[in-house]
């Protein structure tokens, strides 16, 4: 009982977070930046920040993760980090030769008040940024937002720095995938390609953080959106942004800057959300939905039909980032399951909470929701009234272990299993994989708990 210290009685905590269900902005910015081809993410802060972010991303993706740091010292913390960033830009371009340096700030540099654009302008004026190379930035203090808003900030920076207004529109559709796995990004791109669409996806970490073993260490793997493609996002037909919190800012910025109209949708997790995604592409680009996608959709419905008896009324506890949490909740409700405890570490606003509340309005149980909560509270709810299934990142395993509850890993980070970076959970195919995972967890438990008499071969 590793979490034996969790008390069943809930007391209001005002000053304290226990077992956080989120992490800080810079790591999200770093993840987004890795989705630009040939980009060196740069952490403007102490050496520890980027060491932790690189380690956390490495544990999740089991891939090398590069980033540089301003390596703040006490001096920098008193006099500002300008000299460090100038030197960093110089060193990075001369030794690591990226196309782009994507600077994100930290609590330290934000509190000191470093002005990144001013420092970058000075670096450019002094010739430290070679011709054809770029330095972009996002403000990501750790004392505000979460890894999701950090991701959103760096994604928006791609628009702010690169998107170019054009006099005529192309037929290309921009896709902003949100803070999802490289496998999900590839799947979203594949579905659009099945529909015959030209797309630009940003950021795009597929091929960067789920690459093959090649026998070579490459600082800049082949994947990622190119600067050239980012420029062209400004002349696209429209933008489909997936996930309001992670992708909304960038989509709206592109609309304001280059008049590219946008549709901001839920992450395409589950049948309904994927239908809406496909329908949006269909209407935006005026293309037909191909038989291949209709076929995949039919397969997904088929699985649900075959197994619907096992989903009915199962109580589920979910911890996840807001965009994932909302889409998953709607999916579970559509399966006739009962998502009863919903926790997001990130505060995502009143509107988000309202949407979440609406999604579970028909669930015939008392539903508890905490937006801006932690895993400790989540565990306390479960102690008070248990659930049949848990869905969340690897930290949920402590609760699953202590309370002996079936558990499906989903979200960030996943530190103890593989697969998430290779197999999607978005789209119809991803939906099938999620169904398989949920059913495996529920049916394995049923098998385990069956007596000799009730043990069944056919399920």
């Amino acid at each position, binding site marked *: 009982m590793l979490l034996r210290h969790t008390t069943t009685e809930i007391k209001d905590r005002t000053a304290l977070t226990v077992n956080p269900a989120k992490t*800080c902005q810079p790591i999200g910015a770093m993840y987004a930046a890795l989705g630009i081809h040939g980009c060196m993410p740069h952490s403007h802060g102490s050496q*520890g920040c980027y060491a932790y972010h690189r380690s956390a991303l490495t544990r999740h993706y089991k891939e090398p993760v590069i980033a540089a740091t301003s390596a703040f010292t006490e001096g920098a913390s008193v006099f500002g980090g300008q000299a460090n960033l100038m030197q960093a830009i110089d060193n990075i371009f001369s030794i690591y030769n990226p196309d782009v340096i994507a600077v994100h700030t930290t609590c330290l540099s934000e509190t000191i008040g470093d002005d990144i654009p001013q420092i970058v302008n000075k670096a450019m004026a002094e010739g430290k940024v070679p011709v054809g190379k770029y330095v972009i930035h996002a403000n990501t203090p*750790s004392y505000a937002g979460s890894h999701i808003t950090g991701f959103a900030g760096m994604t928006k920076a791609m628009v702010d720095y690169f998107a170019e207004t054009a006099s005529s529109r192309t037929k290309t559709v921009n896709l902003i995938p949100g803070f999802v796995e490289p496998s999900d990004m590839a799947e979203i791109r594949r579905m659009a390609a099945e529909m015959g669409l030209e797309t630009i996806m940003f950021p795009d970490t597929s091929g960067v953080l789920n690459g093959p073993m090649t026998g070579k*260490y490459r600082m800049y793997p082949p994947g990622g959106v190119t600067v050239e493609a980012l420029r062209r996002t400004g002349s696209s037909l429209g933008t489909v942004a997936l996930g309001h919190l992670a992708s909304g800012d960038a989509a709206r910025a592109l609309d304001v800057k280059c008049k590219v109209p946008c549709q901001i949708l839920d992450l395409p997790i589950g049948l309904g959300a994927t239908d809406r995604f496909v329908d949006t592409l269909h209407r935006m680009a005026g293309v037909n939905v191909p038989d291949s996608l209709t076929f995949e959709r039919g397969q997904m419905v088929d699985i649900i039909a075959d197994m619907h008896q096992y989903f009915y009324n199962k109580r589920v506890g979910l911890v996840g980032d807001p965009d994932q949490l909302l889409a998953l909740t709607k999916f579970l409700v559509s399966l006739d399951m009962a998502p009863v405890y919903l926790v997001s570490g990130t505060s995502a606003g009143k509107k988000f909470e309202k949407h979440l509340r609406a999604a579970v309005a028909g669930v015939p149980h008392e539903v508890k929701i905490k937006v801006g909560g932690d895993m400790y509270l989540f565990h306390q709810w479960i102690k008070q009234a248990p659930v049949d299934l848990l869905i969340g990142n690897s*930290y949920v395993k402590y609760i699953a272990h202590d309370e002996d509850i079936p558990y499906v890993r989903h979200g960030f980070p996943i530190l103890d299993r593989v697969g998430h970076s290779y197999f999607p959970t978005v789209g119809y195919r991803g939906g099938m994989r999620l169904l398989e995972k949920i059913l495996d967890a529920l049916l394995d438990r049923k098998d385990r708990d069956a007596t000799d008499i009730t043990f069944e071969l056919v399920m």
Partner: protein
Amino acid sequence: MASIPILKEREKHIYRKGAEPFNLTCGQHSLAGVVSQRACVFCGSRVVLYPIADALHLIHGPLGCAAYTWDIRGALSSGPELHRLSFTTDLREKDVIFGGEKKLQRALVELIDTYQPRAAFVYSTCIVGIIGDDVAAVCRQVSREKAIPVLPVHSEGFKGTKKDGYKAACEALFKLVGQGPVEQISPWSINILGEFNIGGEAWIIKSYYEKMGVEVVATMTGDGRVDAIRRSHGAALNVVQCSGAMTTLADMMQARYGTPYIRVSYFGLEDTSKALYDVAAHFGDNPAIMARTQALVRGEINAITPELQKIKAAVQGKRAAIYVGGAFKAFSLIKALRYLGMDVVLAGSQTGNDADYETLRDMCDDGTIILDDANPLELSKYIIEKQADLFIGGVKERPIAYKMGIGFCDHNHERKTPLAGYEGMLNFAREVYRSVNSPVWRFAPARAAAGKGVSPC
């Protein structure tokens, strides 16, 4: 890949054994913009104190620092598991503006009331150093109120390197030392310092000392308990492992309590045996200890030698690259790898000092690359040049090795099996064998091309 450029300032951090003169630069702050594998002060303090299982560890700062250090180090406890939870004051924007002292005070009181810990450590992160919270004052006040030690750890990330974090941790620990009763402690007693019980290593080491007839008063900090640390000044000797982490505490205890210390390593047969013999020799007034030690060493080595010999035959002549945090670890690794008949072609550390690198130079064969504070490009460049078969490092190095198609062994805090002592050496040899000889490397393109592997199709 052979044309990877090396930054001019970095050239002084790289030495090829045999080349003269030897003037490796080290102990410097990393260059801004370099992809170093190092961490920060907070990281150093956190890893040293974290294994104290009945203490409260509260991270005062924005939530990230707590999230990234939540149960990432497999420091096992035989009892309480309080250290495996993650507590943070989760400082927000308004706290940064108005200060976080009140929040810290409330959080501490709340936690101490709920968990009744034996002591509390409060870690300062970067931002606390900038906004100027008087953490020490809050700690004093809560300590008085709640009648337990509440110890500030001055671990603001930017105030140096991981080494400075070790020092800050030692300073906090030292405040506990000297507070407990020592009457019952044997004259043949030690404290184990710098052993963090990763995978249960401290338990192995402790069992050796117990078999030798030496009492272990406190293990710092593996499977650590506050009350044991409070009476640790009653031990006759401090036995300190690892180069940097806890030497500061040993120095402080020597100065105030006159406790002598010796430095040891428990990695590899040679170093483990030397450690145990050195302790036995220190207690020369009790010859029975030495007799028992000799019997113990003989028995342990005999038990594992047959399997070690088999592994040795299978890994002989393979080439290893080592990149570790403290240089002291590299010394032991080189000896252990040599015992297995392997060649060390690259040895580097994040935080070695002049003396460390001189020792490394003297230990290594001609042509071995010695690196201080290296980056992934340098590591991959020399791994290819030296055709290493095995890389020994930590979390950030593992995927680099795998991407390049060579074996890997974790000698950092993510290791799952104990590598200390005699059975640890056997575990290490097994792990090296499993990884170096894994059939997967036959599919690595470079090997396949060289005719050493099977064709990918």
